[in-house]
């Protein structure tokens, strides 16, 4: 079968997807079918929290594809995530209809507040779910394509490129903060009511979003793995390791970079679109440069160029974040920084590297024994 072929030689991915499948089956049952009073019951807030982690994991996979395999350290993937989120948020805003504070069926509350008389052109069509979903892919994809086309053709690489990606997300943050931009300014988009007619407060919708996030992660993972297993993937790694040599052999390196970068941005957009209905808000803080840097830390923590490591890193770091920002809110940033330093120093290949290391030493022992 196609799937087993994609996952051949990817033990980490097999395990990750198996665990994911189990979680996607068990958690909804424990939430919906087990009584509130039972100790086994999983409360809805936890389902949503896990759903949020899964969207982060997809985002981390997208970053690992460009960083781990193509060698482009993108410090701007938060922007693609946020743009996907805004596209979804715009659809959710239109779904509110006349249930807003001002009761205007056509205009979202913040536009009424700004005294706008009609919907701006770029809000047209977002009342249609299919159109919004298209934009979730198209807008981040287009930005990545244009950005990549300009940057890679000019052969901007390394630190300079990272700084440019950082500047890109920073500029977008300031743009979206402006009320005149028409995306709700500082407050962003919020007060969502329902998605495709289903109330976002309902347990069933929340569980469906959780499952949707898990499926998106699985599909995104398999797509990335498929790309990496192909000759395209081997060329990608060749570009990472010896860019000028790859060019010399006859590959148009910039084309490869642009397409991988664009594909990765689209995955990030999907992650953002699934994130927004679960957290209930999207605002310009998602564009903050720090957010994009955090994603890179997840990937470094989990282990670059493994994909499943990115999933592991994203979930573990965010779980720790939830835990410690609850216990000692001030300490989290220090811990994150310390974690990053420690991982860079002692686990250059991340957690996935530890696992691979264990496997090798275990295999050696077995060989000796045999």
């Amino acid at each position: 079968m196609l799937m087993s072929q994609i996952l051949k030689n990817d033990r980490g991915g097999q395990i990750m997807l198996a665990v994911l499948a189990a979680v996607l089956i068990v958690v909804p049952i424990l939430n919906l079918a087990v009584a509130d009073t039972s100790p086994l019951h999983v409360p809805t807030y936890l389902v949503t929290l896990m759903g949020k982690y899964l969207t982060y994991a997809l985002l981390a996979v997208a970053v690992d594809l460009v960083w781990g395999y193509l060698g482009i350290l993108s410090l701007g993937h938060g922007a693609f995530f946020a743009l996907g989120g805004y596209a979804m948020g715009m659809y959710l805003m239109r779904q509110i209809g006349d249930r807003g504070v001002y009761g205007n069926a056509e205009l979202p509350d913040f536009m009424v507040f700004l005294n706008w008389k009609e919907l701006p052109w770029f809000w047209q069509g977002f009342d249609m779910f299919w159109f919004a979903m298209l934009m979730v892919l198209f807008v981040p994809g287009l930005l990545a394509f244009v950005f990549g086309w300009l940057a890679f053709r000019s052969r901007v690489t390394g630190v300079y490129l990272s700084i440019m990606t950082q500047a890109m997300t920073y500029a977008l943050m300031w743009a979206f903060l402006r009320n005149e931009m028409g995306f709700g300014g500082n407050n962003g988009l919020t007060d969502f009511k329902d998605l495709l007619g289903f109330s976002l407060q309902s347990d069933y919708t929340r569980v469906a979003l959780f499952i949707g996030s898990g499926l998106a992660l699985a599909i995104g993972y398999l797509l990335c793995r498929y790309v990496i297993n192909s000759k395209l993937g081997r060329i990608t790694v060749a570009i990472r390791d010896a860019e000028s040599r790859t060019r010399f052999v006859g590959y148009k390196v910039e084309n490869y970079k642009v397409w991988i970068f664009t594909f990765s941005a689209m995955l990030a957009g999907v992650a953002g679109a699934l994130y927004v209905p679960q957290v209930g808000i999207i605002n310009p803080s998602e564009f903050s440069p720090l957010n994009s840097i955090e994603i890179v830390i997840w990937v470094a923590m989990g282990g670059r160029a493994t994909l499943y490591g990115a999933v592991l890193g994203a979930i573990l770091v965010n779980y720790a974040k939830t835990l410690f920002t609850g216990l000692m809110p001030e300490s989290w940033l220090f811990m994150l920084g310390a974690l990053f330093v420690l991982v860079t120093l002692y686990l250059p290949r991340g957690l996935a590297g530890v696992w691979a290391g264990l496997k090798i030493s275990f295999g050696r022992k077995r060989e000796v024994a045999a």
Partner: protein
Amino acid sequence: MSEGEGAHFYREGALDTSHKAILYLEGLNVSFDGFKAINDLNLYIDAGELRCIIGPNGAGKTTMMDIITGKTKPDSGKAFFGQTIDLLKLSEPEIANAGIGRKFQKPTVFESHSVAENLELAMKGDKRVWFSLRAKLNAEQQALIDETLQTIGLTEHYHKQAGALSHGQKQWLEIGMLLVQKPYLLLVDEPVAGMTHQEMDRTAELLKSLAGKHSVVVVEHDMEFVRSIANKVTVLHQGSVLAEGSMDEVQQNPRVVEVYLGE
């Protein structure tokens, strides 16, 4: 060279070696900031020949290679590949596609790929993004990989990561990466630098086995190695040809002796 003129129609892109020679360099001049790196250089390489080029540092060996591969444009002179292909009109990738392969001094292979994958990546073929996503090795390409591995003696390292190869093996792999592009002319820059004696012997065997099927130009400092492979040696000095002939002839040439031992 004038006898054939007029009898040949100029066919763009097709290699024509009907007059035996595959490479013609005539009256080349290059200077960098007043320094004449190449000074009225004339050199002809025959099809299927294995030629060694020697010369002291600054003799213009690397600059000459740069001109042939399109990296440097000469101030004046002619460079033809076969009868018909004007190298001075082509860009670097076009020259590579026309069938001139160059091996640089420092081996650069794709370290995290296997030996066979290195050859796969270097192979001729459709190199567009969307094609690569679906590309599979066909029987012919697989056969070419196997055959090339045989030639460069790395068959038993088929699945080995290229980064784990020894220095000499990397050099051979890089020659293999040129061979899968099916070049007519191979330019090899100091292939045995840093090699052990055993590796040198194998490299000599390899280069000799390539001659005939390909034309090979080797630039090398190691005289012992040059003696072991060359029929014909060209000595460059101050950007032009000082002497040409068999190794023995060249070594007895008083001007060569003067350049190498005198001064």
